[in-house]
């Protein structure tokens, strides 16, 4: 049996849909990778998307902040609507933070400057406020002492935590995490997941694409299993893991647990 997802139980979801995806379609050339996906995430919820590679989970996640241009459907985040014709994504992107598998820190800037850049350029905050916000964000991920370190001087786990701080400093409504531990050495995974776990406990709305099944089980309110460009199954993690309704999910769980 799995441990009960205590942290999830301790959180309060408000019941207000913060992220609403309706009929999302996306094709790469002749291949349709998203075949009309509907999904809603409430404020404070932590949702993990799982599925085989090519199932569309990363594409769906990346469409939420417009990194993938959708071909059909509507994305709504905190009242900000985006459809396929939308060019200006600035308003949406201020509400949606994103953390990547490869960290994507700006290598020519120190950790502190990485966090401050968008505060200065996008939010137009003054120097003192920017500095304070960056220090607070770095402290939150346990890297307050690395303000002046360059990405190349940090371990993978530290770089990823800076990337999380960089997103958090923009005060997003929802944070998207795209396989954020997949590029890390095994011993560095825990420190990053620890940060995510703390965010979840503090009530941050999180949507994760992950292969960390144990983490998904312990921390998430809901698991979304994607298969063939559709949501094949979703529900509380314990339920999905213990009683998968579709043979695809049963097979997928068998595959990951055999590892």
């Amino acid at each position, binding site marked *: 049996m799995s441990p009960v997802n205590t942290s999830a139980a301790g959180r309060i979801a408000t019941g207000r849909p913060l992220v609403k995806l309706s009929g999302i379609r996306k094709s790469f050339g002749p291949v349709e990778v998203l075949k009309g996906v509907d999904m809603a995430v409430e404020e404070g919820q932590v949702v993990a998307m799982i599925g085989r590679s090519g199932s569309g989970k990363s594409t769906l996640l990346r469409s939420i*902040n*417009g*990194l993938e241009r959708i071909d059909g459907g509507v994305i709504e985040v905190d009242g900000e609507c985006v459809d396929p014709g939308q060019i200006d*994504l*600035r308003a949406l*992107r*201020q509400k*949606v*933070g*994103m953390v*990547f598998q*490869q960290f*994507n*820190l*700006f*290598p*020519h800037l120190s950790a502190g400057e990485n966090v401050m*850049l*968008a505060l200065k*350029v*996008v939010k137009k905050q003054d120097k003192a406020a920017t500095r304070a916000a960056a220090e607070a964000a770095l402290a939150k991920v346990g890297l307050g002492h690395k303000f002046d370190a360059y990405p190349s001087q940090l371990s993978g786990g530290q770089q990823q935590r800076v*990337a999380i701080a*960089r*997103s958090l400093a*923009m005060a997003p409504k929802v944070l998207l995490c795209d396989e954020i531990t997949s590029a890390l050495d095994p011993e560095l995974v825990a420190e990053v997941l620890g940060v995510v776990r703390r965010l979840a406990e503090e009530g941050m709305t999180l949507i994760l694409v992950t292969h960390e099944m144990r983490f998904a089980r312990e921390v998430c309110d809901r698991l979304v299993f994607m298969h063939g460009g559709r949501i094949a199954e979703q529900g509380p993690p314990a339920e999905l893991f213990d009683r998968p309704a579709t043979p695809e999910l049963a097979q997928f769980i068998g595959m990951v647990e055999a590892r």
Partner: protein
Amino acid sequence: MLDFTLWDILSNLLLAARWTVLLSLIAFVSGGIAGLLLLVARVSPVPPLRVAARLFIEVFQGTPLLMQLFIVFFALPLIGIETSAWTSAAVGLTLFTAAYLAEIWRGCVEAVPKGQWEASASLAMTFPEQMRHVILPQALRIAVPPTVGFSVQVVKGTAVTSIIGFVEVTKAGTMITNATFQPFLVYGLVGLIYFALCYPLSLSAKALERKLNVAR
């Protein structure tokens, strides 16, 4: 008949070489500025800008510099713009330099990993903000060696402007040859002057390349 000493010849060539250097500098600096604008247009998210920049680059890379100078020098007066050899040479070389630098720099911009674009876009930065704060600072590092290397082409390109009557070192060489009937000596000196200008540039391009490779 007048006798010319070696110093007579050399001093006159060196005086003319000032104009080679000045023209090179003008072409390189203004071509660099124009090239930067062209580069931004070339990689911008606005399709008409991209197409226009690409067309400009293709035209200037696909025709000889000599033709370009002829067109600036002979064709502009036909539409009412009077040009001197000086301005024609400067304008022609500037456009030529801009086209090549834009293309060299585009390669450098494309060498910046896609994740940098995605991360900065996710932080709600606009295209100009991404270029200014994230992409260009990184592309610049890669761009320095090939840019310095290309400056050699600009210096050598100034020789072509002799054909429209601009008196730089090559043109001066021709004029002096006509007076001294010593083409081998004169053009030999002209060649040495070009080499003296270009070789340090080549060397520094190589040195920069090594240095930046080590730093990475």
